[in-house]
């Protein structure tokens, strides 16, 4: 009896700790039984394709959050990259366009990184400023008009598909593997955890904390640019307002996945769950015929519920 009770307690603790995954599972089962179109291969592919673009940026955002910072400017870098990618494709061809866009994103990220790591300005203010400025830049360059391209190679790349899965989820998967390896198995990755966990202690133990903070912003800049390129691959167009909600979406996915905003804990593998939860939720709401503004309403409620749950669980664990 005692053993049973202990097992029960362990089960309850496990359930609470993985509340988000459990909710996701229940929700998926509910959807499978209520909507037949939900569990079709087409729809599953659709969910994967849809979630991959923001997923690329969300994984990099997770690294920034682990280092104890966050970045509001990723959304503007994304929009700017769709524009830059399309413009440079038309001017120099696809290979040059790819590298120029990634380099430019990394440069913006590095700018954020220098201001946060070296000047020690709060990340919120820095990235608020660059968010506004980069968005302005994208508007100025295109005169607020969308730009598009008819590049043949781009079309061919966009058409690649294996059992319905396009190239974008493959890039997403590659980035996931890369980021997880980087965080868990390299010195830089572990330094990022240490920097986010306790900045002063990390500094005193001889870790180059400034470099850790600098590099995470650069990575996110490049990843947001890559996400922008993937969006360009999908729709073959670029426009400044694209991806406006990217930053907050990525922060939300990270937190829903279980990485704390305080830094020092969590991981990219957790964010995959966060991205999945949001993607499945949107997909299900659309299939159920919920209107746009109602979807928004539910999305907000889910966000609040998850952060409340997460904080309460974290506090119970501490006690």
């Amino acid at each position, binding site marked *: 009896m005692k053993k049973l009770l202990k097992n029960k307690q362990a089960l309850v603790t496990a359930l609470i700790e993985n509340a988000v995954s459990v909710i996701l599972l229940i929700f998926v089962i509910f959807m499978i039984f209520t909507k037949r179109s939900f569990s079709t291969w087409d729809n599953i592919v659709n969910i994967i394709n849809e979630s991959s673009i923001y997923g690329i940026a969300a994984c990099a955002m997770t690294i920034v959050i682990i280092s104890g910072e966050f970045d509001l400017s990723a959304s503007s870098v994304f929009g700017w990259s769709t524009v830059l990618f399309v413009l440079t494709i038309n001017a120099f061809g696809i290979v040059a366009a790819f590298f120029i866009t990634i380099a430019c994103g990394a440069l913006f990220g590095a700018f954020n990184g220098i201001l946060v790591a070296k000047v020690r300005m709060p990340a919120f*203010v820095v990235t608020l400023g660059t968010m506004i400025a980069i968005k302005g830049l994208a508007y100025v360059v295109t005169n607020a008009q969308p730009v598009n391209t008819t590049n043949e190679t781009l079309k061919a790349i966009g058409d690649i598909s294996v059992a319905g899965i396009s190239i974008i989820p493959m890039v997403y998967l590659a980035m996931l593997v890369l980021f997880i390896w980087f965080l868990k198995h390299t010195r830089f990755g572990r330094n990022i955890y240490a920097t986010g966990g306790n900045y002063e202690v990390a500094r005193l133990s001889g870790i180059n904390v400034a470099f850790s903070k600098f590099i995470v912003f650069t990575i996110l800049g490049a990843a947001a640019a890559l996400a922008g390129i993937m969006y360009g691959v999908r729709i073959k167009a670029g426009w400044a307002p694209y991806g406006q909600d990217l930053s907050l979406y990525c922060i939300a996915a990270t937190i829903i996945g279980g990485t704390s905003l305080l830094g020092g804990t969590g991981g990219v593998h957790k964010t995959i769950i966060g991205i999945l939860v949001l993607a499945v939720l949107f997909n299900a709401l659309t299939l159920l015929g919920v209107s746009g503004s*109602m979807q928004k309403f539910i999305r907000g*409620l889910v966000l609040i519920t998850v*952060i409340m749950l997460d904080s309460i669980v974290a506090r119970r664990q501490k006690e």
Partner: protein
Amino acid sequence: MDRKRVLDIIRSNGILIVILLLIIVTGIFESNFLTVNNLLNVLRQVSVVGIVACGMTFCIIGGAFDLSVGSVVSLAGVITILNINAGTNEYLAILYGLLAGIAIGIVNGVLISIIHGRTSEAFIVTYGMQVVVASIALFPSNGLFISGRVSEGFFKSMGQGVMPIIIFLGLATIMQFVLTKTPYGRRMCFIGSNMDVAKMSGINVIANRVSYFVISGVLASLGGIVLCSRVTSSNPTAGLNYEMDVIAAVVVGGTQLSGGSGSVYRTVIGAVIIGIMSNALNILGITAYHQQIVKGMLILLAVGMDIVNKRMKMREMTHEKVVEE
């Protein structure tokens, strides 16, 4: 020594000097910039952001954060206009608008208090509220404009002439007084700088913190109503991204996001600086999109200078101490 003092003044008021230069240059090139009419126009334009920013300042000094204000601006406008169109007494309609802000403030405050949230939790919870409230504002009109059937009266006068400026500056004066001269304001700085110690000293942290969100909510509502009155119609997405403008005003003014210190006057200055800047750039014929770039840089410059300046002062102080010894 004198040279050092001049340098010191330049350093601590860097952003004001930049703006002063902009004003002088624009004033020389364009004769209609430095007119009373134009300056009143600037004040009128910044008054809505300013009113909301005053509430946000309280929130930030108290160690929290409110991203939901933009949506509250939209919602309060929608509620007030709908009520006025339905024939409700205009004072009651305004009251309903304000009550919406109070209710959202209470929800924000209670949710964040339940999880003992700091700035980061407040960030996410109020972002969630922003999404929720924005969608509520869309429901009544399906996202469409609602024009107000009102041509005169108190509501109409709130957004016309010097009224918004009076509301803005009057509120700022009262709030600055509350912040600096009342126990409530002193407690706010205490809670903002160290919540745990404040709690141990017997301050009712929860009630106080909820009140900051309520103030922020009610002022966002007031801002929304003034905005509505100015154009006599409500747009359910009027407050989209407003929170960023509001936070920009607070930050450019020099209140630090870490909480515990700051002033409402600084926020007024921040709002006016941003207003004058965009007005001057408008008159010089620079497009809104170029202005965004300048605005982003202004935020970076203002805060960067503030931080570098503080660090240099600190270094000088320790240096002087060493010399004395």
